[in-house]
């Protein structure tokens, strides 16, 4: 059974191929086909994991060698799939949540002219994501990493008729590419230092052989990739814009799976991170900073999907925070729970947009509870789960992480994480009151979505309620014990206040936050619609996520503009968006060059002669 693991990625790949070539002819069947292959992949994944559980804990790592990929000299890389607790957890999340989102998309994308294409891309994404988590070496992991980036790009820009969607796609691709480049160099460095990319050798004996400096460099370069993919500060700017994609894409790629790849990478490579003394603290600081920063920014958003996007960034920050403390099991628990409730939140938001004619501005919603009861219930459950109200999933996941900070003696981190938890509960209950309760602030009738969309919502809600069971126990919970062979156990000191006190504080903060949210946005006693006018500074800072986009734009544009003025003749185009500026900067640079591409053969000969002279000089230096 374990050897059948190759079927899990192969099925979505087959689905993608069929839909790519015959999608038009299949018509409506394209969606059903895509959902069917996903279901089959999920069932096989369940069987594989059941098989894995039958093995004794220390033998739970199975490598399925498919074929030798590259073997030239000492450079050997196989297409090897690794089934161990860590990858098993990931494939269950990817195929499980992925299946529900595929089913939901059948309803959501109904009537789109490129229906088959959409499911082809979505299946292809799942294939690459599964390759990423099942890879047994860094090169194969990189294949998945590159592939999900490409699919993310295609899906964000799926409605490319909208200029904003095409721009967002480009921005996402280029921003994550900055991190990916770091990661690529990191992987090359692993090969330089250890001569292999195999997890078994790199993470086993290899990590111990690395010098402190090499380990730090490798860990930080890999982390750069994680920061880009998981939208952590300072490479986070692409994620809010990525919400231009269809909502199921936001749910699957930009909430439940792809963005968590960074967390997976850190957990998987923890041996490398631990070989360095500074790598993990940096992960911790970046994670915690993003968690707080994005939580604040989320409070300033009026677009429901952008609010959720910042929330995703914040939650991912919590995951990195946990990983930075060495508490990988906690990070993974939050990853699993977050996959459920954030997918639920996004799909509910999609259901709202589906029912209101693509309205995403929460100022124009309000009072939707009456017309869309199922969606309201789903969103509320998701919000409460994220807010950390017991006994929903988010409570266990977040509480473990926050408590761990206290019990491991990181007091300052604990205080900041608690603030973050409070802000999380605040920003997520805010849309509940703004969109679903109170009075309707816009004309028009909203309608509830069809069962093909609400049934997946119900199933995800069950997950959002129940996933906490995985973390329910005194000794860290089932998931932590299951993951132990992959990531080890975190060294938990018994300092700080007792467990009961911590849980009490955490619950009290969550309830307080919900109460504040109700007072401001739900009770009708605060004129929150007028806040931007009364406090323009505050609203501006929060709404634009502290002007980071503008800052990047300025930083990139300023030298580019000056340079452009020097060389180009009045080439003064106004470009918005920082990534376009990078592109434009490079384009300007490359426009200087054509000065010598005159098209005249004699000037070519001149450059040839000069080059020839230079080559001879270089060689002459060897005399």
């Amino acid at each position, binding site marked *: 059974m374990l050897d059948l693991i190759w079927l899990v990625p192969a099925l979505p790949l087959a689905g993608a191929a069929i839909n*790519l070539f015959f999608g038009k002819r299949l018509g409506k069947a394209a969606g059903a086909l895509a959902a069917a292959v996903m279901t089959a992949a999920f069932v096989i994944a369940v069987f594989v994991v059941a098989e894995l559980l039958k093995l004794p804990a220390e033998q739970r790592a199975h490598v399925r060698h498919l074929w*030798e*990929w*590259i*073997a*030239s*000299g*000492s*450079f050997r890389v196989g*297409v090897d799939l690794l089934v161990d607790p860590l990858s098993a957890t990931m494939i269950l999340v990817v195929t499980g949540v992925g299946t529900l989102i595929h089913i939901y998309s059948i309803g959501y994308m109904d009537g789109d002219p490129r229906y088959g294409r959409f499911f082809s891309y979505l299946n292809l994404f799942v294939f690459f994501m599964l390759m990423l988590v099942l890879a047994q070496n860094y*090169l194969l992991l*990189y*294949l998945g990493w*590159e*592939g999900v980036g*490409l699919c993310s790009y*295609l899906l964000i*820009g799926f409605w*490319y008729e909208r200029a904003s969607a*095409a721009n967002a*796609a*480009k921005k996402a*691709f*280029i921003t994550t*590419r900055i991190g*990916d*480049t770091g990661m*690529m*160099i990191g992987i*090359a460095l692993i*090969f*330089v230092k250890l001569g292999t990319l195999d997890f078994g050798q790199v993470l086993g004996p290899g990590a111990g052989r690395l010098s402190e400096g090499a380990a730090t460099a490798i860990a930080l370069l890999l982390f750069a990739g994680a920061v880009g993919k998981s939208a952590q500060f300072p490479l986070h700017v692409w994620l809010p814009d990525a919400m231009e994609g269809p909502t199921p894409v936001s749910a699957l790629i930009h909430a439940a799976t792809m963005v968590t790849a960074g967390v997976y990478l850190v957990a998987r490579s923890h041996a490398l991170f631990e070989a360095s003394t500074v790598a993990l603290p940096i992960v911790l600081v970046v994670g915690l900073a993003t968690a707080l920063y994005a939580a604040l920014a989320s409070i300033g958003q009026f677009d429901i999907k952008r609010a959720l996007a910042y929330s995703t960034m914040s939650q991912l920050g919590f995951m990195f925070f946990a990983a930075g403390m060495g508490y990988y099991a906690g990070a993974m628990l939050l990853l699993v729970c977050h996959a459920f409730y954030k997918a639920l939140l996004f799909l509910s938001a999609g259901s709202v947009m589906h029912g209101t004619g693509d309205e995403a501005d929460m100022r124009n919603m309000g009072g939707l509870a009456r017309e869309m009861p199922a969606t309201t219930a789903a969103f509320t459950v998701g919000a409460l789960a994220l807010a950390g109200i017991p006994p929903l999933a988010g409570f266990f996941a977040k509480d473990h992480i926050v408590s761990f900070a206290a019990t491991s003696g990181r007091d300052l981190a604990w205080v900041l994480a608690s603030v973050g938890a409070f802000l999380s509960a605040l920003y997520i209950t805010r849309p509940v009151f703004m969109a679903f309760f109170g009075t309707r602030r816009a004309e028009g009738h909203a309608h509830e979505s069809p069962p093909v969309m609400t049934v997946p919502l119900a199933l995800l809600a069950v997950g959002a309620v129940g996933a906490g069971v995985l973390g329910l126990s005194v000794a860290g919970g089932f998931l932590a014990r299951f993951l132990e062979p992959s990531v080890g156990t975190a060294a938990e000191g018994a300092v700080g206040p007792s467990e009961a006190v911590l849980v009490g504080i955490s619950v009290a903060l969550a309830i307080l936050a919900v109460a504040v949210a109700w007072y401001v946005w739900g009770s009708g006693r605060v004129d929150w619609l007028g806040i931007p006018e009364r406090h323009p500074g505050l609203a501006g800072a929060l709404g634009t996520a502290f002007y980071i986009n503008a800052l990047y734009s300025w930083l990139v544009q300023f030298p580019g503009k000056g340079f452009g003025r020097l060389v180009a003749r009045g080439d003064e185009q106004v470009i918005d968006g920082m990534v376009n500026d990078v*592109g434009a900067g*490079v*384009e300007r*640079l*490359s*426009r200087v*060059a*054509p000065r010598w*591409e005159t*098209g005249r*053969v004699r*000037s*070519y*000969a001149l*450059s*040839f002669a*000069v*080059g*020839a002279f*230079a*080559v*001879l000089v*270089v*060689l*002459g*230096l*060897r*005399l």
Partner: protein
Amino acid sequence: MIPAPHLDFLPLLPELIVAGVAVALLVGGALVGRPSQTVLLLLTLAGLIAAAAASAYLWNWDGPGRVLGEMIQADRLAVVSRMILLGVGAFGALYGHHYFARTGVARMEFYPLLLLAVSGMTLLVASADLIVVFLALEILSLALYILVALSFRMASAEASMKYFLLGAFSSAFFLYGLAMAYGAAGTTKIDGIALALSGRTGSQPLALAAVGLLLIGFGFKVSVVPFHMWTPDVYQGAPTSVTAFMAAGTKVAAFTALIRVLDVSFQPLTWDWRPAVWALAAASMVLGSLLAIAQTDLKRLLGYSSIAHAGFILTGLIATDGAGIAAVTFYLVAYSVTVLGAFGTVMLASGGIRERTSFDSFRGLAGRSPMLAGLLTLFLLSLAGIPPTVGFIAKAGVFGSAIRAGFWPLALIGVLASVVGAFFYLRVIVLMYMEEPQAELEPEGAALPGAALALAAGLTLVLGVFPQIILPVLEKAAILRW
């Protein structure tokens, strides 16, 4: 009495067949008057297949390593490179048949010229003496100068003139280097030079000048910065079918000969030529990638991409061991397959003989012809080195070789240049999928080139997923005996 030398023509059989068919077609064509294009194509393909069979037979050749007065090399590197080149020639013939058939004017000289160019290329990879290297280079160049001019567009004549003037200019440098090598070593035999130089009987300054000038000559043929200026102009001006053929063929042939010259003849000077090759590789990768960004014509873009790729291949050449040679050969296979596919798609998508290859013609191609857009996307991804295409494996191979030889900064530059590269290949993909069509161009569907494209696409994917199909063969071929 002088004993008659024993002449063993078998290792030269592939060239004899190809050149023989070329001459036969030339003479026969003149006699018949107006021969059918299809017959010419079939005869050309038959010649190429016969040459491939003869070449395959030589894989297990157990005669002397060099024949015909030690002029021709009979090793496995020659066999493998010949196979690639004959394949490239077959692609070129198929493309050319389609390209010239639709003009309505029969271009019967296309096939003999193509075959002559192929024979020059295959001779180049099998040469054991610099004299043969020079002659082979001239055979292929002279044929290519005319092939480039074979269309009625003014651009075609201009491209031919530029290619010819600069080509002859670079030949002179190459020849000068050859004379220097002769002066330094007292011989022009590829292995004889190595013996003389390692025995310290040679002259160091002359040898350094020789390796430099030869590098310049080869650098022109494979379009390495700063000898690259002709590339975009010629690629754009030449008939697309010829561009496809020369882009793939010249690189394979010239790089294989360069392997012999650098890794055998000047192997004793390895530490002296490495800095120069390092600089050329870095400059090509960086400038090729940067200059490509501002292009607005797909054929020019592919020209700049070819410059960057020359840099990537040179990166692999820095490592002089067998694995490095195998990586370079694999890269040549990968590049040939991909670039043949890319230019083939461009030929079919650019609307007939007028060659609308500016970006505007490719806007919204996905709507008009999803198949061509999909194929071009695949080839561009392979050129960009995105897994799971063959381009990725090839890049991993050459960067791996450079790293193993201790040249990781060069590999780093290569990685960064690839990142920039992905940006401009992506731009073309964006054009095809995410923009509305502007020009009313009807992409052509054609059976023969279509089948060739399908083959190229299949190889791009299959070799990307299962490179082990050919890697062991290439590794066996990478052992140079001298």
